C-alpha cells in the first residue's frame, strides 16, 4: 500500500512541475514590474532605484528565463507567493486566512452531494427504467445544466427573501459577538445546498451506471444464494464495489467544485477563497489571483492522489 502511494506520488511530480510552469507563464504575463510585485509596500516605499535593481539581480530577473523560473520555484517552495497589489500583506497570508471558510463550505457541499447522489443513483439502478429512474435522470441533468449563479439567486429569492428561512449571505450573524454553532450552520445550509446541486448530477449518473453493472455480477447472486437480505446485499456487497470507479469521478469533479466555490461564495458573501478571487479580480490584484490559480491546481493534483489512494483502500486488487 505504501509503495503504491509512493509510486503514485512520483507520477504526480511532472504534473506539479507543469503546473508550476504554467503559473510562471501567468506571472510573466502580468502587467507591472515583477520585482515590485514581490515586495511589500513598506519595502517599495523606501526602495531606491538602486535597491530595486539590486533586488532584480538578487531575484535573478536579469538572468535567462529558465534561471528565473528556477528562482521563482525557490520562492514558491519557501512560501513566498508574492505580495498583494492592494493590501499590505503577503498573498500567502491572505490565502491562509480564507482557506478555513472555504474548506467548511466545500466539505459540507461535497458530503451532501455524495450522500444524495449515491443514494439516488443506487435506487435508480435498482429500479432501472422505472419512473423513479427516469425522474432522477432528468432531475440530475437539470441540476448540471442550471448555472450555479442563477440557482444561487433563485435560492436567495425563494428561501431568504420570500420565505425568510435562511440568511441571504455571510458566515454568521454579524451583530452577534459570539455566534452559536447553530447560527453558523444556519448560514451554511443554503450555499452548501446550491453548491451540492451542481455536483450531484454526475454522482447520480455514475453511481447508477456502476451499480447497474455491479448488481449483475455473479458475487451478488452468491450473496443472495447465501440468504443475505437484498438491501444488505446491495449496500454490503454492491455499494463498495460500485464506489471504486466513483472515486475517480469525484476527483474529476474537484475543479468544478472550485469553480462553484468562486461563484457561490461571491453570491452568498462567504468569506472564503472564492470570494477573495472575485474581490481580487475586481481590484485587479493579479498576484493574488495567480497564487489562487496555482494553489487550486496543486490542490486538484493532491485530491486526485487522495482519490487513487481511496480507490486502493476500497479495492484490494489495486493495492499490489
Amino acid at each position: 500500500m505504501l509503495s503504491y502511494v509512493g509510486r503514485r506520488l512520483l507520477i504526480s511530480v511532472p504534473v506539479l512541475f507543469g503546473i508550476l510552469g504554467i503559473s510562471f507563464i501567468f506571472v510573466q504575463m502580468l502587467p507591472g514590474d515583477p520585482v515590485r510585485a514581490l515586495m511589500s509596500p513598506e519595502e517599495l516605499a523606501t526602495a531606491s532605484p538602486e535597491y530595486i535593481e539590486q533586488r532584480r539581480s538578487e531575484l535573478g530577473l536579469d538572468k535567462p528565463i529558465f534561471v528565473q523560473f528556477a528562482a521563482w520555484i525557490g520562492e514558491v517552495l519557501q512560501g513566498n507567493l508574492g505580495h498583494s497589489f492592494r493590501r499590505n500583506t503577503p498573498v500567502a497570508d491572505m490565502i491562509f486566512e480564507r482557506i478555513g471558510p472555504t474548506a467548511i463550505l466545500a466539505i459540507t457541499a461535497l458530503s451532501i452531494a455524495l450522500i444524495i447522489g449515491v443514494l439516488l443513483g443506487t435506487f435508480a439502478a435498482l429500479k432501472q427504467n422505472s419512473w423513479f429512474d427516469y425522474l432522477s435522470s432528468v432531475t440530475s441533468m437539470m441540476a448540471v445544466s442550471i448555472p450555479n449563479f442563477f440557482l444561487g439567486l433563485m435560492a436567495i429569492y425563494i428561501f431568504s427573501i420570500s420565505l425568510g428561512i435562511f440568511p441571504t449571505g455571510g458566515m454568521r450573524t454579524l451583530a452577534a459577538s459570539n455566534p452559536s454553532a447553530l447560527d453558523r450552520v444556519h448560514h451554511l445550509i443554503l450555499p452548501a445546498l446550491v453548491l451540492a446541486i451542481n455536483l450531484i448530477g454526475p454522482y447520480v449518473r455514475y453511481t447508477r451506471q456502476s451499480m447497474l453493472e455491479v448488481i449483475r455480477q455473479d458475487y451478488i447472486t452468491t450473496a443472495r444464494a447465501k440468504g443475505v437480505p437484498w438491501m444488505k446485499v446491495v449496500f454490503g456487497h454492491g455499494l463498495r464495489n460500485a464506489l471504486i470507479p466513483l472515486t475517480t469521478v469525484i476527483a474529476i469533479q474537484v475543479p468544478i467544485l472550485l469553480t462553484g466555490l468562486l461563484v457561490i461564495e461571491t453570491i452568498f458573501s462567504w468569506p472564503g477563497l472564492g470570494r477573495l478571487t472575485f474581490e481580487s479580480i475586481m481590484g485587479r490584484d493579479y498576484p493574488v489571483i495567480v497564487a489562487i490559480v496555482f494553489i487550486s491546481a496543486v490542490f486538484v493534483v493532491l485530491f486526485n492522489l487522495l482519490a487513487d489512494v481511496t480507490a486502493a483502500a476500497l479495492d484490494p486488487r489495486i493495492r499490489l
Partner: protein
Amino acid sequence: MSENVQTAVPVAGRSDEEGIGRRREREVQKGGNGRAGQALSPSRLAIRRFRHHRLAMASVLLLSLLLLLAVLAPLISPYDPNAVNTAAYREPPSGAHWLGTDSAGRDVLSRLLHGARVSLTVGIAAAVSATGLGTLLGLIAGIFRGWVDAIIMRVVDVFLSFPPLVVILLLVAILGPSVTTIIVVIAAFEWPTACRIVRQVSLSVREMDYVLSARAMGSGSLAIVRRHMIGPVLPPLTVVATLLSANAILLEAALSFLGLGVERPNATWGGMLQAAQSMTILQEMPWLWLPPGVAIAATVLSINFMGDGLRDAFDPRQRL
C-alpha cells in the same frame, strides 16, 4: 465442414441466464429491433435511435428555434438592445416592453435576443476550437505513442488540474474582455477532454486487425488516420463537442455574471443576471433576472439532452 452449423457438444458456456443477457446485448448493439435492424448501416441506426429519444428531439427543436431567433435578432428585436432610455427606468413587463426594461431603460426582450447571439457564438466557436485542438493532439499521441504520448498526456493532466473558471477569469482579466478572447481562453482550457477521448479511441483502433494489416501493407500513418480512425473517433467526439459547448456557454455566462465578459454595453445573458446581485432588483424586479437565467438553463439543458441522445444513439449500452 458440412452446410450445417457445427455445434461442438458439450458447449462450454456460463449459466443460461447470462447467455440470454449476452445475446440481448449483441442484439441491441446490432440495432435494437432484432432482425429488421440488421440491414441498416450503423450510422442510419444511430440516427433512428436518436429520433426515438424524445427529450433529445425536443431539445434539437428548441435549439433550432433559438438559433433562428439569434440569427434574426437584429430584425425581430423590438428595440435597439443598447438604446438607453431614461424615461423607461426599470419598467415592469407591458405591451410596449414585453419583458420590461432594465436600469438604463433598455428593452429586456431585445437584450435577451441579442444575448443569445453571444452565448451561441461562444458555445459553438469554443467547442469547435477545443475539439479541433484536442483531436489533433489526441491523434498525435495515439499515433506516435511512446514519449510523445507521455508528454501530451502529462500536459493534459496539467491543464485538467486548473479550475476552468478561475484560470479563465485571470486570463480574461489580463488580456481584456472580448468575445474572441473568451473563445480562445475557453478553448485553451477545455481541449483536454476531447484529447483524451481521441487518444483512447485511436490507441484501441491501432490494435485492431484491419489497421495492423494496413500497417503491414505499408500504409502511412496519415492514410491510416484518414481511412480507419475518423470513423470510430467521430461518434464520441460529437458527444464531447456537444458537452463542451454546454460548458462554454456556462463559462461565458459565469464570466459575464462576474463582470468580466464581453465588452459593455453589449447584451449577454450572464451580464443581464449580474444586475440581480442587487438585492432590490432580486427582490422586486424578477423580470430583469428571471428571463436570462431561464434562457441559459434551457439552452444548456437542451444541449445536454441532445448530447445524451447522441450518446445513446452511438452507444446504446451506456444509458442516461
